[in-house]
């Protein structure tokens, strides 16, 4: 199932884990692989014509002896004149975010989503901006 831009509201990423992130500098595509909490087993988040990559992650002092799982606690996007700003948030074992600009983003799921996700509005500049994540 393919969900493009705002259609990704139908996919819940909360409590899923980021498994990998790869950039292809020649085609300016960034591909994220997510271990999807709803099941079988992975979904892809793909961003096209990427720029302005920003990653800030630090381990949480509350999970000192844990492995560094990148548990997703929010997925946000903001439509701009040029395209979209996309952001993945982490607030558990690791704290921080990955943000980039792109012209288009889409999520490819292995099956129908069981519950809706939605924009968590955590990008500064969003008129519905919030710091809450639960």
């Amino acid at each position, binding site marked *: 199932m393919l969900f493009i831009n705002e259609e990704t509201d139908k996919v819940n990423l909360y409590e899923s*884990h*980021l*498994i*990998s*992130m*790869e*950039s*292809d*500098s*020649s085609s*300016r595509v*960034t591909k994220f*692989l997510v*271990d999807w909490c709803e099941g079988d087993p992975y979904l892809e988040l793909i961003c096209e014509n*990427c*720029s*302005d*990559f*920003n*990653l*800030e*992650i*630090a*381990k949480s002092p509350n999970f000192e002896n*844990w*492995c*560094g*799982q*990148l548990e997703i606690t929010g997925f946000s996007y903001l439509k701009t004149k040029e395209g979209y700003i996309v952001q993945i948030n982490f607030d558990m074992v*690791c704290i*921080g975010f990955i943000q*980039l600009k792109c012209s288009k983003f889409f999520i490819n799921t292995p099956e129908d989503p069981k519950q809706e996700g939605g924009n968590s509005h955590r990008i500064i500049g969003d008129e519905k901006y919030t710091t809450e994540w639960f």
Partner: protein
Amino acid sequence: MAMKNIQLNGFDWNGFYIYGIRYSDDWCHMDLLIRKSGTDNVENRRLHMEFSRINQARLNGSEFDCKILGLVVNENENNGCDVHIETDKGLLSLTCCDIMLT
């Protein structure tokens, strides 16, 4: 031959880029995907880390693909390694049991 842990301090990183991060399913291993300048991503070189976690990562640039400027591995008091990677986009700081270039 694979280089391991503090042996990596002597490696010439000139022209190497990190273009990806990949965890194993059980979170026990992490690979930093490496490519050499002027090549595409098919070489499949990796910095493979056992029981790794990110302590801090701060990368900021036009894209994720980042040029390695320096890599320092220090053995820590837990018989593991603290790894600091300086790139043209920022810093990656990790702790792991072992780190290997393959």
